[in-house]
Each structure stands twice: as C-alpha cells, then as structure tokens.
C-alpha cells in the first residue's frame, strides 16, 4: 500500500521487535531530516507491520525500488536522507544482505490472520509476562502516566483525549474525553472512577484477555484518567467468572503499589491514586452503569433513571466516571503517541482500532484488533479465514444480545459506530457471532431474547413484561403456530420496549428481533405460512433435517434407518413413495439433505445420496424392477411438454391420481437433460431408461420426436381434448460470453456438444480444450472432453470455494488431471487462419462481496496471459428456449426470458396452463425441477377438480416410524463415512464407464448405523411412539 502522490515511500517496520529497537525514534529522525532537506512533499514515511526480519531491525523498505535498509541507527539518518532521498544514491553499507539459507517458515506479516490487524489495546499480547511489571515497563509501560503527571495539566490530558477521538469501547461509543470533562467539571468531592470489566455478552471476551494478558495497561489508563478528572480512588469491577483475570489484576496492583505507580505521591509528583477490585456476580444488567454503581456500593444491581448521570451523581452520590476495560487500555497510547497519531487511524467519526472477538461458525476463532472502518468481509474472510467447513456465510451477530445481525449482503459494510447503528446493529463490546446457512434466524432471535428475559432485573415493566411477551410470540412462530399479524405485533412491542425501558438492557433487548425481521423476514414468513424452517432447526417443524430439506420430501431418515436394519426393500419403498427416479437421484442429486445433516456438525454428514443409490441398485441387481401398479384412468387428459425431471415427475404424479397423461418430447429419447446433458459416466443410459420405462408402465404415455410449436401447437393440445397443460421445456440455450472472437471456428456450445455426443455419439472438439465456467455443465463438458482424449483446462473467475458445481464432481475432475485456472476469465479468442488458436486470459482477484454475499472478482492490474487452445467451450449459463410459443402466446414472460408462474401453485396467467422446472427458474437442479413437477401435478388436480388452487401447509411428519437399531456407543464411535469406491483414473480414458461404483452392502449398513436419527425427537415431540 503506497501512496501514488509521493515520489518515494519509506515503509518503516513497526513490528514489536523494531519498536523495541527504537524504530519510532528512527522514524521521527527520518521525518525531521526529510523536512530539513525540503523533501516533505516528495517522500512519505509510513509505518507498516512487522516485515518478519526482526534480527535485522529496525528496518525500512524504500518503494517503489524495494531497497531494503536494516539495522538503522539514529546517526545514519542524516547521511541516508541526503545520499539516497536527495541525491538518489542508495547507501550500500546499510542495505540488507540475505542469509545463505532462506527460512521456509512463513512470515507472520504475510499470514492472513495478522496482515490487517493493528494492535493498540492488545499491543502487548503474547509479548509480556502479565505477572511482571518490568515486562510492561520495558514496552513503554507507564510512560504515558509519567508524561501525564509531569508534562501535562489535567486540562491538557482531557484535551488530548478529546482530540484523539477516542470513544467508549464498551457499548454506545460515547466520546471519552467529553465524559471525563463532565466529571472534572462536576461539583462534589471526592470523585470516583470505575473500570467496567463486567463483560457479559455471550461470545465477547476481549476485556478478559486484556486484563489477563496486560493488566497494567488498564491500571495505567485509569491512573491517567484519575489525574485528568481529579480522582484519587478507582474501582475495577470484574466478573467472578474470570478467575485468572482477577488473580492477575491483583498481582498487577500489588506490583504497581510497590513501585509507587499506585498509591500516595506517584512518581514523586504528589498525585495519589489507588485502585480497588470489586467482584461481580455475573449479572448482565451490570453492564449498565447505574446498576454497576449499585453493585459496587453493595446493593442489588438495579438501574435507576438518568439523569442525573453518574458524572454528576454516581458512586455514593459523587461524580463518577465509568469506562470499560478496552477504553482504559487505549488511554496510555493516546498520551504517549499523541492525539494526532491516534486520530490518523480509523474513519471520520470513529478513531483508532476496535477489538472484535470472532466466534461461532468461523475457521479461526480469536481476537482481532483492526482499524475502525475495515469491512465486515475483511474480518470474516481475510482475517479469520471464512466460515468453518466452507459453508455459506449467512449473517453475523455483532454486539451480543443487545446488538443485531448483519446479513451476507452487507459484507462490504465498514465497521464503525455509525455504520453499525445505521445497519440496525451496534458496536457494543465487539463480540461477533458468525452464523452459517444452518442457523435459523427466528431461533437466533429466540435464543437472545431468552437470555435477556433471564437477565432482566425486573425493575421496569416494559422490559420485565414486554420481553416475555415477545418471546411467547417467537415460540409460537417456531412451533408453526404463528400468524402474519404477529410480525407487526413484534415490531410494535419492540418499539415500546425500546422507548420506555429504564436502562440499556431493555432498550436494546429487542434488537435481535428487529434486525432479523429487517433482514430475514422471509424466514419468519416461511415458518408462519409454509410451516418450514429453512435452516432445519426448529424442532416442531422439522421432522428430521434431511426429510425437511428434501425438495421432494424424501424421508431420508426413515430409509437410512431401514438400511441400518438390513431392510432394503422397505428402504426402497420409502424412496419410491415419492420418487420415480430414485436410481437417477442416487447418482446425480446435489443432496441438500447432506448439507443440513446434523452428523455433519461433528464429523461427516451421512452419505444419503450414496445410500439411496445403494437401495435402488440393490433392487435391480436382485432381479427386481420398480414396482408398477397401473392406476385406472378415471380422470381427464393432461398434456406435459418436456420429458426432463420436471415433466417426468408431473406425469408420474398425475398418473397416480388417475389422469391420462401424455408427455411430449422433442428429442428421440425421453429424459431431457438427464438423457442428453448428463454424461454417461455419471448416469448410465440403461439405468435412466429403466426408470423412465417404469413411469411408462404405470400408464404415462411418452411421445418422443414431437416438438411442440412445430409438430403440434399448444392450442392444438386443448383442441385435442387435453384439459390442462404443464410446460417443462427446460433451459437449453447456452449463453454467450460476450468476448471478441467468440463466433470463430473452434468455439463449441457445451449443450450442443453434450447432446451430440450423448445422443448421436458425435463430437467435434480438438486436442486442447478450454472450458469456461464453474457450474455442473462446465464440469460435465470438461470431463467429457477429457474422456475423448483432449487436454482440458477449466477457467473460473472465482476460487474453489465459490464454485457452484457439485463438490464430488470438482474433486473427480481434478483427480482426472483436468486443470482448473481459478480467478481467471477469458478476454479474447484469437485465431490463426480462421481457426481458434489462443485464448487471451485475465487474472482476477476477489474484492468485496455482491448482494448475495459471494466474493466479487475484479481484474488484477497486470494480469493478462495467453493459453494455447483449439477448442473453447463457454459454459457460463443457460436460458429457456421459448420459440415453441411461436411468439404469439399470451403467457407472461419475465425479463430473464423465463415463464412467469405463481411459485406456490405453478399456474401461469393462462387458465389451464402450468409451468415449472428450468423454464421457470432458469438453470437449477434435477431435484428442484422434480419439486416443481410435483407441485404442478397437485395444482392441476385441484384445478381440474374445480377446487381452489390455494395450498394448505402443514408441518411435515414422517410416515414411517422406524425403531432405533440400538448400536453400542463404542461401536458407533469407530464408524466413519466411507469414501465412494470409483474406477481407477487410468480406466476412465476413452470410455464412458460409470465412475462411481456404489457402496457395498456392508458399507451401506455401517454408514446407515452412523445416522443420529434426528427423526426420533420429532416423533417423541408429537406424542407418537416407535
């Protein structure tokens, strides 16, 4: 990070070691000399983090030439400035000489966790022994106090703190200097000050860490404050749950007294100040200053109305100042380094740094201290490494139970007091609880409200009575008994409680509810209207997370339980009840059930997809066929257009209800994308066709080679007696990249490529293939091209973590030797003699986040390169083909060229016509298409029976109640998710043999035994027996 304005930037190391080698003095000397030589507008001195060469400290890098000076001494400075910066002759003698053997250990300054941190409050972390005052003194400890006592008047101290812009680090961010001034000017003697160490927010522990790790920094800050405010007695209030902090602050006080840094006549200046430690019993309300004062006085910790404020009437009715631990720890630095320096860090209104404790679903849990204004995304991803288990980031709760949540779409939010308040949260103490997609926001609000209900002191009625009322409503919603009006009631209650509560506890308690309502209203609606908990958490609604999550409602927990007992036939029946394509789904499903599986919280989720495949294969290999019971046709004729997963599902469901269904398919074979886009090494054709044949056998007619709009029109269908039509024509049109040269020979449409190959066994590709994109179509095209003998490279603009393709597919592609160039986009396809020969590429970097919380790629400045290719397959997206409507339909079409339907019923604006699958949603998953087919079938049934189409939603319950298998815990403890057996890589070239071999019987049973049987909880809750 260098400033372009200057001719030269001097990066001087501000790491610990450098600081102890007097790098500040060196920096000051440099600045003096630069000014003296009149170079102030040309050369800029910047303090950086530790550069990791502590043995050569203090050191400096001169940018832009990267000249490295080491072991700088004060006496070298005038010569260096004159020779190098004025006359332009670098000084050899002071330059760094690299050692013979380079260390292979990373530099701390290059590690993400440390790179963006700047330590002020935590300046001594890990560096000093907290039980040795000399260690603290060595690192400039008590220098600020010495300065405050000998060089500054109390007014000057207050002025310095005011100018620094330091604000309270414990809650609302009140300007510290102003608070001090009030106390100084207040009438009444004696005056008191208090350090608030009653850190009560769940997940916040920075104050504990400071008191434990650097107790003198707090004492020194308090002493400086005491001098400024005219206080002789301070109190340090610390919660009893922090025994180590309590012990260490005691040791620190003893040592400070011994040195005369506390007590009478400090440093011989005639100033007296001492500190008494008060233990708190751990009441959350003590974070509020008037309650804390009551507690210090030995009374029941209850707040009282303000004004009068503690500055006028505090401890024992005397003027009292209260600041929290982190604020006090900042004070000595403001005095030693000065207000100007301190206020150069941070944003306009929030100066300095803030310590955040980052906990929850995060890769690196810890304390981070960053300049105010750093973005939320930088803390979560750049510093703490992102969400644990690479799950999707959902939200972060900042400020504990008093704060609010910030959703993924605000990852670019700069963190300072104002911005957080605007976003409906608050800085609070700086506790950050990171939540992933498996957190239910209604449950979260419920959790925090339960906490504040328990911690409410009960003195004022809005808080005492209001919070439990809000909690009752949340409980109702969590149980699926809520109504939409409840949401307004929650907001109304929140407003009243915020406005009328006596203290900060009540005033902020509704925040978790109001902020989740603000950002996640759809989740509340989902619980109320659809009886669904999207994160599969709320137990009254969630039969089992896998069952709850499956778009077509497969009772995964039940069939896995049957497998554990060796009852494979029953297990299959559970699947067949809802799914005519169990073999297909057992191979290509993107298994959202495994994402929500609770076994995945501690180790690996249950391999539900592989188990499904196992039972479906078991049926086939044992001579069975999908049981087919033709249903008598008692109802009207229904036409389905398209035989992909949506069409097949709708046809099958309608057939079961007794309708005469005809599916019209334009291609030669049925199956849609399943037949011609998904390659055979993932889904063998015979397996697909045997399931389609079973659907046929159940009485569904499939007319292939019949293209709607060409062979027959939609109007014709009505004319031929079809009473309802379901349009499921998919999204087969490939989108263009929009780069120059894309129309050249050698650029291949992936959909066309897969289709030609899968249906006609024809392929038109070269030897060096580049595939663009990160979705399943890209991976399918790449692995198909690889099997045909090509050398394949995939270009994807983001990183592995953001890739939307199924995880296992990416793994296998990499194992097969397909290269993936991450963070790369193509910019031009170049040709020679009219034939594609090279691809010009641009390197990207992730910077900031889009509205969905995905990292956003931007070009790297100098980052173009070329690769040799003869084939380019752009697979960056697909759209529906609506030409079958012949442009004269009255069907409503969205701006994305998809058909518009009512998402709850799949009805279009034209009576009798329904639509679903990719033609409505754009490219999605097999399972989502099947879900749309199922809903459409139910709606068509209601439509033709003259019933209202409005769906009624009830909490899902499992139909099967399978008793537990009764495994001994020690047996269960050894169980591990088996990895899917596959054919060796060398056997995959030049053929399309199925790669995954499926589980053996033993593997399947052992894996099924590992299931935690979440379904039993719901069964018990509903008063049912197993």
């Amino acid at each position, binding site marked *: 990070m260098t400033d372009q304005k200057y001719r030269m930037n001097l990066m001087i190391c501000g790491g610990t070691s450098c600081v102890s080698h007097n790098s500040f003095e060196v920096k000051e000397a440099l600045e003096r000399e630069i000014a003296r030589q009149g170079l102030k507008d040309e050369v800029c001195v910047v303090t950086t983090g530790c550069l990791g060469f502590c043995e050569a400290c203090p050191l400096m890098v001169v940018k832009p030439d990267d000249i490295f000076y080491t072991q700088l001494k004060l006496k070298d400075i005038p010569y260096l400035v004159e020779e190098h910066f004025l006359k332009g002759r670098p000084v050899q003698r002071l330059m760094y000489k690299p050692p013979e053997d380079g260390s292979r250990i990373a530099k*701390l300054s290059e*590690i993400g*966790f440390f790179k963006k941190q700047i330590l002020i409050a935590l300046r001594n972390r*890990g560096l000093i022994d907290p039980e040795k005052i000399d260690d603290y003194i060595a690192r400039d400890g008590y220098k600020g106090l010495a300065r405050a006592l000998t060089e500054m008047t109390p007014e000057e101290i207050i002025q310095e703190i005011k100018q620094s812009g330091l604000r309270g680090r414990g809650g609302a961010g009140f300007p510290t200097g102003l608070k001090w001034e009030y106390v100084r000017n207040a009438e009444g003697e004696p005056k008191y000050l208090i350090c608030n160490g009653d850190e009560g927010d769940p997940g916040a522990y920075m104050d504990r*860490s400071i008191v*434990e790790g650097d107790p003198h920094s707090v004492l020194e800050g308090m002493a400086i404050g005491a001098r400024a405010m005219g206080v002789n007695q301070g109190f340090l209030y610390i919660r009893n749950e922090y025994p180590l902090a309590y012990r260490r602050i005691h040791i620190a006080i003893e040592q400070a007294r011994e040195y*005369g840094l506390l007590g009478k006549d400090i440093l011989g200046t005639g100033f007296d100040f001492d500190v008494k430690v008060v233990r708190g019993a751990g009441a959350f309300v003590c974070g509020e200053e008037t309650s804390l004062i009551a507690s210090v006085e030995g009374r029941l910790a209850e707040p009282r109305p303000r004004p009068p404020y503690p500055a006028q009437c505090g401890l024992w009715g005397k003027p009292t100042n209260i600041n929290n631990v982190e604020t006090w720890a900042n004070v000595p630095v403001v005095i030693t380094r000065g207000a100007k320096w301190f206020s150069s860090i941070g944003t306009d209104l929030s100066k300095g740094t803030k310590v955040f404790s980052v906990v929850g679903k995060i890769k690196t849990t810890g304390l981070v201290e960053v300049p105010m204004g750093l973005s939320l995304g930088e803390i979560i991803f750049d510093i703490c490494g992102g969400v644990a288990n690479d799950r999707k980031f959902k939200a972060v709760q900042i400020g504990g139970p008093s704060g609010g949540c910030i959703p993924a779409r605000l990852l670019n939010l700069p963190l300072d007091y104002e911005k957080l308040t605007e976003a409906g949260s608050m800085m609070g103490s700086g506790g950050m609880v990171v939540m992933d997609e498996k957190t239910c926001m209604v449950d979260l609000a419920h959790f925090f409200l339960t906490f504040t209900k328990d911690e409410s002191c009960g003195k004022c009625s809005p808080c005492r009575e209001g919070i439990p009322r809000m909690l009752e409503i949340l409980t109702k919603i969590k149980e699926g008994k809520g109504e939409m009006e409840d949401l307004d009631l929650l907001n109304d209650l929140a407003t009243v409680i915020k406005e009328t509560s006596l203290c900060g506890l009540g005033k902020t308690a509704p925040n978790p509810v109001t902020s989740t309502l603000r950002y996640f209203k759809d989740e509340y609606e989902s619980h109320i209207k659809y009886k669904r908990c999207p994160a599969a958490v709320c137990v009254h609604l969630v039969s089992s997370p896998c069952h709850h999550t499956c778009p077509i409602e497969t009772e995964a927990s039940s069939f896995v339980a049957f497998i554990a007992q060796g009852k494979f036939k029953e297990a299959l029946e559970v699947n067949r009840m809802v799914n005519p394509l169990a073999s297909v789904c057992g191979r290509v499903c993107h298994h959202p059930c495994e994402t929500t599986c609770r076994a995945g919280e501690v180790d690996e989720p249950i391999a539900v997809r592989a188990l499904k495949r196992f039972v479906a294969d078991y049926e086939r290999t044992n001579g069975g066929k999908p049981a087919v019971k033709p249903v008598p046709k008692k109802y009207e004729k229904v036409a389905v257009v398209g035989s992909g997963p949506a069409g097949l599902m709708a046809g099958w469901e309608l057939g079961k209800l007794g309708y005469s269904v005809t599916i019209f398919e334009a291609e030669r074979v049925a199956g849609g994308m399943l037949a011609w886009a998904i390659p055979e090494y993932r889904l063998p054709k015979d397996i697909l066709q045997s399931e389609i044949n079973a659907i046929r056998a159940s009485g569904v007619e499939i007319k292939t080679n019949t293209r709607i709009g060409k062979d027959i029109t939609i109007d014709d269908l009505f004319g031929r007696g079809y009473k309802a039509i379901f349009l499921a024509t998919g999204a087969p049109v490939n989108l263009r990249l929009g780069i120059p040269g894309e129309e050249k020979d050698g650029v291949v449409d992936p959909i066309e490529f897969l289709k030609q190959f899968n249906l006609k066994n024809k392929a038109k590709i070269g030897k060096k293939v580049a595939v663009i994109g990160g979705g399943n179509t890209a991976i399918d095209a790449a692995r198909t091209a690889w099997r045909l003998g090509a050398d394949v490279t995939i270009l994807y603009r983001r990183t592995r973590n953001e890739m939307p393709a199924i995880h296992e597919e990416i793994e296998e592609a990499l194992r097969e030797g397909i290269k993936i160039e991450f963070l790369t986009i193509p910019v031009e396809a170049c040709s020679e003699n009219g034939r594609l020969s090279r691809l010009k590429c641009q390197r990207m970097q992730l910077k900031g986040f889009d509205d969905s919380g995905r990292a956003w790629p931007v070009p790297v400045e100098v980052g173009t390169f070329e690769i040799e290719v003869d084939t380019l397959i752009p697979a960056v997206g697909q759209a529906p083909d609506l030409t079958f409507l012949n442009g004269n339909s009255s069907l409503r079409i969205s701006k994305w060229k998809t058909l518009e339907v009512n998402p709850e019923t799949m009805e279009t604006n034209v009576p009798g016509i329904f639509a679903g699958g990719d033609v409505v949603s754009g490219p999605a998953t097999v399972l989502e298409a099947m879900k749309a087919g199922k809903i459409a079938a139910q709606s068509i049934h209601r439509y033709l029976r003259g019933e209202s189409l409005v769906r009624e939603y009830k909490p899902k319950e499992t139909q099967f109640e399978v008793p537990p298998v009764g495994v001994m815990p020690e047996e269960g403890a050894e169980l591990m998710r088996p990895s899917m057996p596959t054919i060796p890589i060398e056997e995959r070239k030049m053929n399309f043999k199925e790669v995954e071999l499926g589980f053996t019987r033993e593997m399947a049973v052992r894996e099924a035994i590992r299931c935690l049987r979440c379904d039993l909880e719901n069964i018990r809750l509903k008063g049912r027996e197993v």
Partner: protein
Amino acid sequence: MPKLSLADLEKIREKARATAIMREGGPYRVKVTVHMGTCGIAAGAREIMDTFMKSLEEKNIEDVLLTTSGCAGMCSHEPMATVESAGKSPVKYIDLTPEKARTLFEKHVVGGEPVQEYALGSGSERTI
C-alpha cells in the same frame, strides 16, 4: 522497594528491555513464551509449560528463559508458544501437545533449528 522516581522508571525500562530482547551475548540464549490466557489454559497450556520445565531440569539448562504470556489472539489454535533465539526472529507454534513440545524443545530450543511442521510463522505482529 522504595518508590520510583521518573529516572528510576527509565532505568527499569532500559534494564528490562535488555532482558526482553534476545541479543547475542545477552544473559539468555533463547526465550520460550507459553501463552497462558484462559483460552490457552483451557486447551492444555499448563501441560505444555510442565513439559518445557521438565525438559529444562532434565538437561540442566540455564541459558533459556521460560516465561508465560496472555492470549496470543488465535484462540482456536491454542496451546501456543513462541520461541525466540538471540538475534533471530521469534517463531510462533500452534496446536501444541506435550509430544510436540518435547520435539520442538529438542530441535529448536536446544538445536537452534525451528520446527517447520508445527510453526505458524515467524516475526511479530504489527503493534503501534
């Protein structure tokens, strides 16, 4: 101990700095810091401390300064320790076990060679 004057405070600072910074020719050859905040202790820092103490006694080593400190910030990677040889960058070790502590004592503290497998990084953090 009598009360300090300003000059005394500076003297202590100079003296303490001399021991805090590992210089060649200084009183100690190596400084080993075990991070013992609540997070470190909960993760087993006491055992790590015991291991180092025992190793020092067994080998009768006197030029190694074994000391403690608070939380180093990366709470999910505790127990952590920092080893700083005179004239070299300090090396931070994470996720220690008594077994690992014994190995790094042998190799780094006694042998002077940092143990790459257990190391997080070298150098120090950016402080003010």
